[in-house]
């Protein structure tokens, strides 16, 4: 590309497009990236001084530059961290991260409006002083004696306790093989019913206090099974 801006009256084979500058002299450009020479003056012109069109200089690469070629985990010394988090099989439940917290914390926060996301969307009122309760204020905390209604009871049972119940079933089953065989079809018939009932209970209450309900009903059902088994055994 040779863009030569010339005035019409100066077009002649004798006149040089570079003005007073000798063509043998290649004035370096200040940026150092273009292979063209732009000369200003009486006859401004843009001349392509290299054999290759739009050829630019290669970028200056420093030896310590971090690119995608380098293994960033090695570079930042995260190998141990990577092995610890990625190669070892860790539990995915929140309760494994916070084992000392009471209650069932593995349930989603949206179920009981305890999500951190809602805390960000609707932040609580802050900036007020936290003062101790006066005696008159404490009088408002006089409660009625007696247990709470079931729907308001706090579920403090941990999920691991359910496993122990299953183990107890198996332990009672190993004493008599007949019990296991009679239990299994009963279990298979009753399992969908159990799920349906628990689903209905959750819909009605919409609170995390359904665990004790389920455990109470299961205990009753286990008692019923044992009674049925005792009735069946003398018949067989």
């Amino acid at each position, binding site marked *: 590309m040779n863009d030569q801006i010339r005035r019409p009256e100066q077009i002649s084979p004798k006149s040089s497009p570079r003005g007073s500058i000798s063509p043998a002299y290649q004035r370096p450009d200040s940026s150092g990236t273009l292979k063209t020479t732009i000369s200003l003056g009486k006859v401004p012109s843009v001349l392509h001084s290299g*054999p*290759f069109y739009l050829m630019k*200089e290669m970028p200056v690469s420093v030896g310590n530059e971090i*690119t995608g070629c380098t293994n960033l*985990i090695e570079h930042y010394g995260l190998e141990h961290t990577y092995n610890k988090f990625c190669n070892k099989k*860790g539990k995915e439940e929140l309760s494994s991260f916070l084992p000392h917290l*009471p209650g069932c914390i593995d349930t989603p926060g949206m179920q009981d409006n305890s999500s*951190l*996301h809602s805390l960000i969307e609707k932040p609580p009122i802050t900036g007020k002083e936290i*003062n101790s309760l006066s005696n008159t204020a404490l009088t408002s905390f006089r409660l009625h004696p007696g247990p709470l209604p079931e729907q308001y009871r706090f579920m403090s049972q941990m999920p691991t306790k359910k496993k122990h119940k299953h183990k107890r079933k198996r332990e009672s089953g190993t004493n008599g093989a007949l019990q296991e065989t009679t239990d299994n079809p009963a279990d298979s018939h009753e399992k969908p019913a159990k799920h349906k009932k628990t689903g209905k209970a959750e819909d009605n209450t919409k609170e995390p206090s359904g665990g004790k309900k389920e455990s109470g009903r299961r205990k009753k059902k286990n008692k019923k099974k044992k009674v049925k088994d005792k009735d069946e055994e003398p018949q067989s």
Partner: protein
Amino acid sequence: MADRFENLEEQLERFIENTRQLGIIVSDFQPQGQNALNQKLQTMVQGMQEIDKMKGQMQDVHVPLEVFEYIDQGKNPNLYTKHCLEKALGKNEQVKGKIDAFKKFKALLVLELSDVFPKEMANYRAMRGDDRPA
């Protein structure tokens, strides 16, 4: 730096334990337990005051919002770290693949152009060899 997190953790654990005990008292309340209930309530307020005092030490702590999504779903927040590391490694490998592919392409292109335009490529190589910084 680790002390302030340990202190906060201890304070929160005490607060949660106090709340749990309060819940036990309330679940089956007896009139004799009124004093204990009042004491637990006062302890709760004191716990809140202590935790509120600690917020000044945590101003520079930044928590990514994506971790909250994991916690809200009941998942271990270490999973977030694991997924971050895996994504970083995957992206690193992807970019390295691109760089290697472009290098191979450049080598092949220079080879083919040298076959078709030998003189021009010799000039090019000479110019690149002069222009390349040490």
